[in-house]
């Protein structure tokens, strides 16, 4: 049995917030799917509202507070992430974007990420593909094909609610399918897509400049 960590980034501002509601449904579906194959999941939910001042301070000073630092670390070290934003003025919220602005550029390289958004009506649903997907593509995340948009009505009517539950279930399944125990990845060299080589595991490409220090002779020779 493997325990995976999933970081949930929820940018809803209301309390309670429908964005958080959707985030919890997605996290619950992931939990069920992981349990279904005999693994465990630890979910860390980050309410960006609680970090809003710290995020702004980080933008202004260039360094994170202790609380924000641990939130950024949680996202960077998670096995997968769920990112959920409300739609503001036709796009993700400014707070949502600001969080990803202060996140290390390499933090999500190769990390499976599920995208979700909430809005007043389904007319905003393309925010998933026209705003969120390019942002997470820039960060080189491994974005699952199904994004989940929940309009206000989806939380009420039977039919729409069932359809939302279906999308939540499908997207969670896609995310969990990407959670492969590293042991499984490395035993079978034939398994090309999930293969063991560091060159095929983009997360291994993330470098800590302190641990991968280039000796000075090489720096001198390289110029």
């Amino acid at each position: 049995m493997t325990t995976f960590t999933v970081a949930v980034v929820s940018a809803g501002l209301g309390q309670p917030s429908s964005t958080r509601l959707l985030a919890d449904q997605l996290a619950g579906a992931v939990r069920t799917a992981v349990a279904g194959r005999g693994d465990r999941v630890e979910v860390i939910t980050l309410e960006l509202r609680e970090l809003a001042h710290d995020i702004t301070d980080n933008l202004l000073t260039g360094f994170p507070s202790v609380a924000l630092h641990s939130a950024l670390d949680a996202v960077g070290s998670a096995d997968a992430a769920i990112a959920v934003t409300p739609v503001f003025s036709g796009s993700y919220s400014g707070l949502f974007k600001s969080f990803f602005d202060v996140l290390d550029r390499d933090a999500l390289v190769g990390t499976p990420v599920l995208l979700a958004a909430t809005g007043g009506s389904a007319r905003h649903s393309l925010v998933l593909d026209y705003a969120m997907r390019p942002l997470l593509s820039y960060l080189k995340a491994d974005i699952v094909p199904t994004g989940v948009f929940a309009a206000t009505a989806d939380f009420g009517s039977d039919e729409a609610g069932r359809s939302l539950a279906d999308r939540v279930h499908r997207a969670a399944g896609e995310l969990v399918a990407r959670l492969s125990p590293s042991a499984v990845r490395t035993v079978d060299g034939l398994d090309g897509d999930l293969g063991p080589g560091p060159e095929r595991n983009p997360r291994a490409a993330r470098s800590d400049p302190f641990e991968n220090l280039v000796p000075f002779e090489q720096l001198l020779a390289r110029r």
Partner: protein
Amino acid sequence: MQFGIFTVGDVTTDPTTGRTPTEAERIKAMVTIAQKAEEVGLDVFATGEHHNPPFVPSSPTTMLGYIAAKTDRLLLSTSTTLITTNDPVKIAEDYAMLQHLADGRVDLMMGRGNTGPVYPWFGKDITKGIELAVENYDLLRRLWREDVVDWQGTYRTPLRGFTSTPRPLDGVPPFVWHGSIRSPEIAEQAAYYGDGFFANHIFWPKAHFQRLIELYRTRFEHYGHGSADQAIVGLGGQVFMRKNSQDAVSEFRPYFDHAPVYGYGPSLEDFTEMTPLTVGSPAEVIEKTLKFRDYFGDYQRQLFLMDHAGLPLKTVLEQLDLLGEQVVPVLRKEFDALRPSHMPDGPTHAGLRAAAERAAADQRARELEAAGNAS
């Protein structure tokens, strides 16, 4: 241990009066501040180098040469000299010239600047920042150490039979610090040459700088310049003092709240918690500064930022009185008592000249011995 001040040279509106000093006023104020530093018993004055408003010190050796003439004891330095965009030949010449005028009271700190466009302004490629720092500095060292240089590199036109003039005073090049707030490569560079490493940690939490300095110390030992604890470390600091702590806080708060770099961001209280900034009584400044040693080990130079964010000259001079009279004498005593005897002193021209003479005498003795064995 050396104590001093470093200035960014910003022209900033005083938020309490709305008054902005002229460039002339700010430049003359920097000179007055340097003279005051000597008067109150500090050891070092360092100026930044910037090529964009609202900063005035674009020509550090002009300013330091003038200050050299007005002072007798003060060590003149930079914070930082742009090793990336300045021609290393001109740095070699300018600072050797300054060495002669100042009777050796000169060292400098290499850095890469704080604004991207400075690279294109001087015809350089910002994506080559580290490479420029590496190549230019290697050439600079040779220009100071070899009378005739043949050189070819990537970022500058080649040199054939070139002699940088004047030669360094007494044949001893100025001591060099490397300043970095981010890059392990620069700590590695400082370690490789056995130069000093200066961590201006005033805007950042300490954990990052502990890593940088630890790396520098480890690599300093690796390259055979001495034990890790003997590596030459300098640290930044930032303080505002009044006799009563609460007076310091209420007087400094408007400057903090509107300051360039961190203004409009975290509260004064949060920022003092997260960074080396101390706003309070001289005793509080002493307590916090002594802790730097716990975090980073014994070190050789402590520079404080005292004159930014629009603080009026009169206030800065009062701050320097407090620093020189009430803080630094105590810090000197405490740090000296804690420092093991095998720790090197802060670098000076006299110290470097004596070391060079010792090395030359050792070399002669070895040669004589070798000649004796051969006969």
